[in-house]
């Protein structure tokens, strides 16, 4: 079974060498470059001849989707330029495809995130499975920023840590870098344009939820407090950015929204979310069942059988 690896870059010369070196075993490497002005392309040229160009866009997932068609092989691994794989990745991927390649179309791979020089272990950060290894044509990314794609067939296998293939991600050098990126994503995201559906208190509710679910000092120490606070702040900022993009502007009703929103997040839901933290596959199992029962998009089935 042959594999194409697609790496998306934009001014990535610091991390790209390590990323490409870790997938040099792939049968094909495609680098999709977003108008880099540093030595990214020169580094990429050491590993592959297939360097494609794309204009700068605010949301990367749409680009991911667009360039999947470029892969020449059956299986695709999508890697970011600030990620890399371990030394035994080739053997592990080969084994995965040999063992499960006929029964599954996509694999959710746990990811180690390193933030401010610390590898995150706490809720929400690990295993945080990423759907990056899949059969061509079975996965669809929404036009967003760093969302999980949809596995059209629902045949997704989530790998079980600890002893399995991982993605290693060097996310953020420090907290400032994290804040800057979060804000960047929030500013560039797409928001529902219909003012009637806008409800600021739902953003506040999500802020509370983020605060509660992302705190995990047992695993991540004080850093988890800091990150949870940023995530809560991020939810509030997204609410304001959304509001700002609407016309006519609905009432913000912030003052009444605050206490109401707090009540909107019952304790059981937070506990459930925390419990679910490492068991995200529940969602995919549900997806798969729905697909098999025929409740899920018949159009998609037709596309597949064609």
């Amino acid at each position, binding site marked *: 079974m042959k594999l194409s690896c697609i790496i998306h870059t934009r001014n990535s010369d610091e991390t790209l060498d390590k990323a490409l070196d870790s997938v040099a075993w792939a049968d094909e490497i495609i680098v999709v470059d977003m108008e880099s002005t540093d030595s990214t392309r020169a580094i990429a040229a050491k590993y592959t001849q297939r360097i494609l160009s794309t204009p700068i866009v605010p949301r990367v997932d749409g680009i991911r989707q667009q360039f999947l068609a470029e892969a020449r092989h059956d299986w695709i691994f999508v890697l970011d330029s600030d990620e890399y794989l*371990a*030394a*035994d*990745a080739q053997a*592990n991927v080969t084994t995965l495809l040999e063992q499960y390649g006929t029964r599954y179309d996509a694999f959710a791979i746990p990811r*180690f995130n*390193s933030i401010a*020089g610390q*590898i995150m*272990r706490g809720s929400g950060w690990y295993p945080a499975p990423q759907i990056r290894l899949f059969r061509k044509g079975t996965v669809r990314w929404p036009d967003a920023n760093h969302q999980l794609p949809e596995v059209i067939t629902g045949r997704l296998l989530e790998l079980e840590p*600890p*002893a*399995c*293939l*991982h993605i*290693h991600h060097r996310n953020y050098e420090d907290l400032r870098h994290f804040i800057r990126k979060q804000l960047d994503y929030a500013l560039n995201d797409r928001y529902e344009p219909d003012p009637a559906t806008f409800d600021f208190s739902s953003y506040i509710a999500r802020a509370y939820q983020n605060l509660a679910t992302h705190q995990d000092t047992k695993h991540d120490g004080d850093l988890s407090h800091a990150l949870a606070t940023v995530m809560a702040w991020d939810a509030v900022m997204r609410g304001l950015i959304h509001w700002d993009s609407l016309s006519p502007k609905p009432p913000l009703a912030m003052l009444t929204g605050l206490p109401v929103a707090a009540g909107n997040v019952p304790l059981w839901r937070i506990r459930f979310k925390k419990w679910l933290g490492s068991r995200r596959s529940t969602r995919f199992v549900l997806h798969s069942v729905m697909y098999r029962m025929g409740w899920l998009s018949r159009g998609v089935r037709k596309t597949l059988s064609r």
Partner: protein
Amino acid sequence: MVDTVSALGLTIVIPTKDLAGMLQYCLEHLQRALKVASQFEPCVVVVDNATEIPLLEKDLPSSSSPVHLIRFDIPASFAEANNTAIRRYPNAYYLLLNNNVLLAESALADMQRLLEESPNAGLCGTRLISPDGTIQHAGIVFGPGDIGPYHVSRGQPSALVSRLNGEFQAVTGACLLIRQSAWDDLGGLSGEFAFGLDDIDFCLRARQKGWRVCCSCRTDSLHCESMTRGSDKPDKRARRVFMNTWRGRYAIDGQG
């Protein structure tokens, strides 16, 4: 990647799993030993063998030379870990080092001298003691019948055991200096011995190719052996695989 192989380049391979604290001291002692053995141009490679929380380069102490890190997501065998590291960082000499070995200051220099003195010596081990001061390793000998390989003088107080450098059929891979030509001759450690004793297999194969195996006994380095495996009993499967391959093909130089 190391592009040029210098005459005294030394790649030190340390496979490690879950003993981050121990590893720090192992590296510190290694740096000290490298200072004494200053003729070497060292290249330290830590193989993170599926440690639960991956190691980061910045957390590894390095005084002179940078420490390279190779990560395995799924625990690899001793052979695979070492072979991968050495394939990536070829050099004139290789040192296989366990993460639970604290080198004596002049251990490395002594081992190198032994190899230098006899050009047909390809491998050199070193004397190791347990935390209680008794011998853990001072060469490996082979008993008759089912006894097979065992550590000579093991458990005796170090002070009672001769400090004469010796020649053996095998030495331990916990700390093993290897000449590149010998390593290349043998094609690295054999992956067949997934449960252990691959170091002894390596030594015996080396002798078949005409390389001598010696053990430097002037210094005592500390080996906290049971820390890694959780027990210091040899693995039964390892022994079975080993005996199936080697029974009757080594000289009996141990006790009955």
